């Protein structure tokens, strides 16, 4: 009996897996050419780009914080990448981004941890700042790269697997390792679960906070570089509409927005789920507004399911 309950609990805790399987089945019925190699490949590539951003923000969400500035960071770094590539050649694209991501990460991290500004508010402010910087750097319009090799980064393939997917997987593994096997990971969970007691337990919560924001900035910068290399253009408005979808995918995946609960498998599944929805939308041939409608309804539906499973969980806990 107890065992059964435990299982049920676990299942209800991981509702995203059901969602995923359901949508995969649906896809087979709806999407004419969903299960074609090309399409699945495309799906994975999309997932990988969004996923890289999601990995970063997951750290922040696990702390129970949020990062509204993630999208503008992506666009800012896409611009920086192009500028760098023109100045110092291809290699500097990723390099410069990663280096500069330290600054943006620190800005968020310090404001939240040391100045104690509410994370949502902080990042809402930095969001505007980053967008401004992007626009200033780009001179108000998308800037194209002069060298044609700029595409090479994105189109490069490792054993027939596009590099973006490889990078994404590597990030995923590293992140999962960090979270599951290292002290840092546990401390992140601790802070997310209850910041005060984590502090009392002698954890340097400020340090953890800053590191998490650095990680999210780092991932944003990598994504930015990839986008830049994919388009050969640095666009200062590219990421404006990425923030909320990415956060949504994480929450849908089962990262508890109040922190302390969730893992990267869930993040991955969440992002994959959303991407499948978008992909199906693209194939469905609905008009733009029908698509908006469907996506809105899907998001709400998923939230409902989460709520429901939460209830199941509570009941079980009560019974135990």
């Amino acid at each position: 009996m107890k065992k059964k309950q435990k299982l049920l609990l676990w299942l209800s805790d991981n509702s995203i897996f059901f969602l995923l399987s359901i949508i995969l089945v649906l896809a087979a019925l709806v999407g004419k050419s969903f299960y074609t190699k090309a399409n699945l490949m495309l799906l994975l590539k999309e997932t990988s780009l969004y996923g890289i951003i999601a990995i970063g923000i997951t750290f922040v969400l696990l702390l129970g914080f949020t990062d509204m500035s993630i999208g503008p960071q992506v666009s800012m770094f896409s611009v920086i990448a192009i500028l760098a590539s023109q100045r110092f050649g291809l290699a500097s694209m990723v390099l410069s981004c990663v280096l500069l991501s330290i600054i943006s990460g620190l800005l968020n991290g310090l404001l939240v941890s040391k100045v104690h500004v509410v994370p949502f508010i902080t990042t809402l402010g930095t969001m505007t700042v980053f967008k401004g910087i992007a626009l200033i750097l780009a001179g108000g319009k998308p800037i194209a790269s002069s060298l044609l090799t700029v595409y090479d980064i994105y189109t490069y393939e490792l054993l027939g697997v596009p590099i973006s997917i490889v990078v994404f997987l590597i990030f995923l593994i590293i992140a999962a390792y960090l979270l599951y096997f290292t002290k840092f990971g546990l401390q992140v969970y601790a802070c997310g679960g209850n910041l005060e007691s984590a502090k009392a337990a002698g954890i340097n919560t400020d340090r953890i906070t800053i590191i998490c924001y650095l990680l999210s900035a780092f991932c944003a910068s990598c994504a930015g570089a990839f986008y830049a290399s994919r388009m050969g253009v640095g666009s200062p408005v590219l990421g404006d509409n990425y923030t909320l979808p990415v956060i949504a995918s994480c929450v849908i995946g089962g990262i508890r927005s109040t922190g302390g609960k969730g893992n990267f498998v869930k993040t991955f599944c969440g992002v994959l789920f959303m991407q499948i929805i978008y992909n199906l939308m693209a194939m469905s041939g609905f008009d733009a507004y029908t698509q908006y409608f469907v996506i809105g309804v899907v998001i709400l539906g998923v939230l409902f399911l989460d709520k429901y499973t939460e209830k199941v969980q509570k009941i079980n806990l009560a019974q135990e």
Partner: protein
Amino acid sequence: MKKFLALVLSFILLLSLLASCSGKGETPVTKNSSSTVAAKDGKKTIAYITPDSRSPFPVKYSSAWKEECSKRDWEAVILDGAGDAAKQLSLIESLVAQKVDMICVTPIDSTAIGSGLKIAYDAGIPTMTVNADCDEAFHKYTIGYIGTPNFTFGYRSGECMAEALGNKPDKNIIICSLHDGFQASMDIVDGFKQAIKDKCGNVNYLDEQPGKSDKAISQALMEDWIVKYGDKIDAVFGADDTVAVGCINALKANNMLGKVIVVGAGGDGDGLPAIKNGEMYGTTYQSAAAEVSLVFENIELYFAGKPLQKEEEWKMELPIITKDNVDGYEPAY
């Protein structure tokens, strides 16, 4: 333990997906095989990727697209770029995956679209840029371009403005552009400036701010400009009629309409009435329907295996609308 199980599970899922894609699709089909695709049945699927279905012109464009398709009973697939250059790329890729017969796209960014066009080319699916063109570098991937470049579009409005200014230099002009960071907006403004430069010589631009194709915003801007520059302002250019009319509202409220020349672009249901009752001097008329039908003529030519029309053949004239000829036109959208 369970967490680990989950880890393993999802990795299996992931690997299976990867495995199914390894080798990346089938071998590239050569271009002429598109005719064989055509041969498989008469019914063609023509896809169009909009720049952003949230603004009126693309919407008009897509509805025209649907009509043209239904005329030929072809299937129309209309996808929304949602103002995101990267999304346009992935849309192209997914269209490639669906193996449509032809992909037409209005690039949000002339360079960014390139890699997408290349992918379609490699997959042997013909692409065509409509309304706005991609960079020279990528022309080799497309079967051609039909449309009215934003630059020319702006240029025509510029000419209209110049005419209104009597081709005199040293006028004070204010520009109300569309969106920050979008190429289309920039091109229109650049075209406009170019025309003014050619016709009037050097003029003095007081200010240039984005109206975000939102009347409320452009009106607020104009109000501030009036306060700031007052009677200095000789003319205002709105990068589309919506913002132009926004500016007109502000001018009207400060009864400066007579003194300031306003020129818009697009010739939509806001602009034409304003011209009729003499509030707006003129605008450039861009007809979605005409352009789309032209596009489809060329698509047919392509499927018939004939070369597309040369630019000078289809050269779309962008009529300038002023009080004199306004009655001859229906609102473009």
